[in-house]
Each structure stands twice: as C-alpha cells, then as structure tokens.
C-alpha cells in the first residue's frame, strides 16, 4: 500500500495493466519521452518501450482515429488528449466512430478504447484548457464517461475502463492531480463503471457531485451547522448514471443539490434533476438545486475563481435547500 496522488495512481494503473496485458498500449503527444504534459505517463516508455508507449504527432483526429482502429484490430489502446479543449479536433472520430462503430456494424465490431483527458478549471489556465465537457459525451450514446475524485478510485476506475469492451472517456480532474494523497493498494482491484459512491452518509440533504467538485463539496459541508446532516454522493461514473444510488438517498433525505463545474444550462445536472423528479417526486421536500458554472466560457486567471462554484455557493445552496 502506498500513499499516492491522483497522478501516481493513474500511472500505477497503467503500469499494472500494461504488465498484465500485452495488448494495452499508450498513445499521445509527448506521452513517451517527455512523460506527458502532466507527467502522468512518466517512466512508461522506459519501462515498456516505444512500441507500446507511442509518441504521436500533434494530431488529435489522427490519435483518436488510429486508436479506434487499434481497438477494432484487437488492441487495448489508451489514448491521451492533453487537455479537454483538444477533443475538438478529435470529436468526429470519437462521436461519429468510436461511439457508433458497434451500432453501425450491428454488433459485429466493438471498440475497447480508453481516452484519458485532463478536465476542468482551477489551475489558472485559459479557455480550452479549463472546460468541463462531460455532458456532451454523456449525451452521446455508445460512450461511457467516468471521472474519479480520489487516487483510490482513479486506479480502480482506470483498470475497469481499460478492460471495458466499450469506449470509455476517462476524465482526470486536473485541479486535484496533486492536491492530496491517499492509500492506494498495490494489489489489483477495480471500481466498477456505473457505480456511484456515498462519500459521507447523512439524513437531511443529498448532494451529488463528481470530479474536483467533490472536494469542494466536502469543504462546504464543513461550513454548515453541525446539526445539518448531508449525504454526499460522488458519481465516479457520469454515464451510465447510477440513478439507484441517488434515488435511494433522496428518498431518505427528500432534498437534493447537484454540484458541477460545467455551465448550468443543459449541463449534466439537468439530467440528474429530471431523473430525481421522475423517481422521487412524492418524496421531494424542496426543488432540486443546481450549483454550476455560468453559461459562458471559463475566463482567465483573475475571474476564474468567480466562475467555479465556490465553497460558499455550495454551502449556501445546501442551506437553502434544507431550509426550503
């Protein structure tokens, strides 16, 4: 058992999966010699060689498309896109091909692809390096979308993603890449895709979040009065949604707050809110609240923290929901 950061946990998962399965490959810009922009793939090329840890040209469409081809051809590629904004050039391959290959071939061809993508704001980066586009991909049938919020989950989820027979986007919340450490077992374990986690149990309000926002939700809970008991759910998998976990909790609390970094309008919070309404209507004591980013682009630097849902905004929403 080692005390690891999120980055180290991801690296460990990659090492172990590459050791266990020769079909697992890593591809991306500067992932080999340089170890990746965030040093997530550090040491992999030394260990597994240039055939398995492939430095590609600067070409996201090419990276994504050829990884799809590799997957179809029997390999288990793990492609890295350096920042979520660069999914733009890869979008056609991802959405029009990875997501639809199985359907298009009516079950004949499947795409066991993992795409690793750093996501989210809070590192003083500009637009295109700070976005949270998970809803776009959750809205695309055929893709699975996961986002760990802790080193332990990061390792287990990545192993599941690599082994999954369908294409999985593995979003890495870059703000907490090195924010804290956690005990991560050396031994093999997996976190199932599609299973949320109750981070803290509570009675009065259910808070649903994912990625780096989970950490801020925990901070917000510290700000609340002692007698307000909050149940915090970390989705871990965005899609498929573990609605059972949420429903069970909301039936108990009668109140729900969804917290995410992405713009509010048509964000994933809207889907969760709708499903809670569908499943828990008669249990609800208050309208579901959403704490989210604004409907604009992540501004640079001095305004960045105003954009991100703050601990205060989250605490306020939880308080308001409880008091409704």
């Amino acid at each position, binding site marked *: 058992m080692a005390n690891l950061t999120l980055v180290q946990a991801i690296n460990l998962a990659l090492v172990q999966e590459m050791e266990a399965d020769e079909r697992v490959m890593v591809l991306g*810009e*500067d992932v080999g*010699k*340089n170890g990746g*922009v965030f040093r997530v793939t550090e040491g992999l090329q030394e260990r597994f060689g240039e055939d398995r840890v492939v*430095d590609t*040209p*600067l*070409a*996201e*469409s*090419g990276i994504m498309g050829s990884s799809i081809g590799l997957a179809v051809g029997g390999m288990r590629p793990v492609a890295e896109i350096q920042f979520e*904004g*660069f999914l*733009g*050039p890869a979008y056609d391959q991802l959405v029009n091909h990875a997501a639809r290959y199985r359907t298009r071939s009516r079950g004949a061809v499947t795409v066991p692809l993992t795409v690793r993508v750093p996501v989210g704001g809070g590192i*003083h*980066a*500009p*637009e*295109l*390096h700070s976005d949270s586009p998970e809803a776009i991909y959750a809205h695309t049938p055929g893709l699975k979308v996961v986002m760990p919020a802790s080193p332990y989950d990061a390792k287990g989820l990545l192993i599941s993603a690599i082994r999954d027979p369908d294409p999985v986007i593995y979003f890495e919340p870059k703000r907490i890449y090195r924010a804290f450490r956690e005990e991560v077992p050396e031994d093999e374990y997996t976190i199932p895709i599609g299973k949320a986690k109750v981070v803290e149990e509570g009675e009065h309000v259910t808070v649903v979040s994912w990625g780096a926002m989970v950490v801020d939700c925990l901070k917000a809970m510290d700000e609340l009065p002692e007698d307000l008991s909050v149940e915090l759910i970390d989705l871990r998998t965005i899609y498929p949604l573990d609605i059972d976990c949420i429903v069970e909790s909301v039936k108990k609390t009668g109140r729900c707050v969804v917290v995410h970094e992405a713009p*509010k*309008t048509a964000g994933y919070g809207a889907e969760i809110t709708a499903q809670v309404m569908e499943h828990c209507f008669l249990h609800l004591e208050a309208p579901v609240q959403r704490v989210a980013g*604004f*409907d*604009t*682009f992540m*501004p*640079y*630097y*001095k*305004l960045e923290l*105003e*954009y991100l849902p703050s601990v205060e905004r989250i605490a306020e929403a939880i308080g308001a929901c409880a008091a409704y």
Partner: protein
Amino acid sequence: MSTATADKDARTKSRKRPSAELPDKTLVGWLRDMMLIREFEIRTMQAYSNAKIGGFCHVYIGQEALAVGTIGSVNPDDPVITAYRDHGHALARGMDPGACMAEMYGKITGCAKGKGGSMHMFDKPNHLYGGHGIVGAQTPLGAGLAFAAKYEHEVMGKGGKKVALCYLGDGALNQGALHEAMNLAGLMGLPVIYIVENNGYSMGTSIGRGTTMSEDLTKKADAYGILGATIDGMDILNLYDHFKPIVDTCREESRPAFIDMKTYRYHGHSMSDPQKYRTKDEVEGVKQRDSIELLAAYLMDDRKAITEDDRKAIDKEVKAIVRDAMKFAEESPVPDVDAELYSDVYVNPSPGCSPIREYVKGAKNPLL
C-alpha cells in the same frame, strides 16, 4: 566559413537585393522592433516568475526576426492570424505594449480585456485576428480571411488586393486542418501565405519525430499544388529578400504559398519545460547567429547606418517602453466580475439565452 560571413559575402555581392533598396529608417525600425520584442519577453518571463502572469505563457525569444520581417513585408491592412506564441506578432503588428502586457496580467486594459491571457492577442484595428490556442485551427481561418479579401476585391469591387499571413508552428504541420486549408486555398486561388515558424520542436517532439519530409517541407506545398519555399528566418535581410517577392506574387496573382521558415526558440516551450529533448550546446550554437546581433552588425558595420551609441539609445528606449507597459499593467484594474463574467459572448443576446443571468455589454475593448 561561418554562415554569418557567408551571408555577409552574399550581401555585398548583390546590390540588387530587395532589402538593399530599403531605407535605413526601415531597417533601424526593424532592429528596434526586434529589440522591443526581446525586452518585452524577458520581462514577461520575470513577471511570470513573480506570479504577476498566470496560466500558460509562451515567449518568442529567438524568433523575433520572423514576425518583424514577415509583417514588415506586407501592408498594414493585410490580415494576420497566428497561434498561441503570439506576443511577437502583436508587437510587430503595432499593438500597444501596455495592452499586450495587461492582457497577460489579466487586467481589463488588456487587448482581450484581461479575460484571455498570453494566447489571446487580438488587435482588430491593426488587422491581427488572434492568438489561437488550438494548434492548427487558425489555418482554415487564415484561408477564410484571404477569401474575404479576395471576394471584397473581385466580387464587390472594393479595396485593393490583399494577402493574408497565417502563421503556424512546425507541430501544426501534422493537424488535419492545415491540409484541408492548403488544398482549399490552392483550389480556389486564395491569397494566403502559410508561414511555418519552424523552430524544430513541437513541445518535446523534434520535427523529424513528428512530421514526414521534415528536411524538405516544400514537398507538402507541392502536394497541394501551391507555391513553396524554404527561408532562413534568423537573418531578417535574407528573409525579406526571399519573402517579399513571394508576397508580391501571391497578392498580384491571388494565389497561396507555404513557407518553411527556419527559426529557433531559445527558451522552453512554456514556462515549465525541463527541456530534456535538446542539449544546452544546441541552444548555445544557435544563439551564435542571433537575429538581433546579425541585423545590428549589418547596420553598424556594413551600412554604417547606426553607431554603437545609437544601438544603446534604442536599447534604452525599448527598456523604457516595456517598463511603462508593466507599470500600466500593474496599475490597471482587474475585470469587474458582474460586468465581465457575462459579457462578450453574444453581440445580440436574446433574453433567456441563459436562465441564470442576462448577458451584459461589459466594458468596451480598449483597442477598439
């Protein structure tokens, strides 16, 4: 014989070189602009280390002759578009250094109102259309700018013949967008010049590891049936001599070109780059042919246009300009949250565009 002396010999031999026709004033202006960019970037790096500048920051040191020489070869109203290593282009195009620095400081007086940062250099009055962070994405945009100019001139009968400059790094050679753009420009005869700022590296990937035919990139131009050339971008006179005729041709005949312009960045890719991919010797070697030194030596020793003292005076002048720019940036206010988080998204937002808040006008762009 060193390359520098070879260049000098060539220079004295042919008096007919286009750069030989340029008045002293122009060349001294170029020297000043190159020195301004260098000083600006040195101070940018300091400001970054002092946490005055956040985010990502890519400096232009080493490549100064390229932006100054190419922009010096076109008209002030020819459209220019580039990628994210853009401070040099902004200054060469005439952006107020204060607006450039303030942008990086995240201040409202910046050219993008302090909401963009280092990669967002826009100066519409000076026909600079960015500053773009998606590598390669600016290349079809450059074709479009050329298309608009051509359309305006040929179809609407307005304006003169223009040529668009579209810069890209060697890493951008590998993006699909460029290849679509080059084909389109070739097919439609668009007056756009793709200038590959070939500094040999795309982050940690040397050009040979990232692209085919790296020894002769003009083959990529051949593939699309457009004019191609390789030009040394460190010697600004040589650059002008070879580049200016291409500009004239593209403008006159309305056709695209693709230039492999050799240059070098002295510093890391961004402010956090351990530079494991190259040796100190390599960097020091290139610095022996520094573009500012080459031009200064020519102006002092060959043309006798300036003296050592004149050079010192220019140095003093650019230092003062940059000092003022930093002071301006430092003292400028940060964007107002209420006005600026929700502005500049739509020209004409309908109510209900966002149920959270209404979009607002915000402050006027300081360069407009």
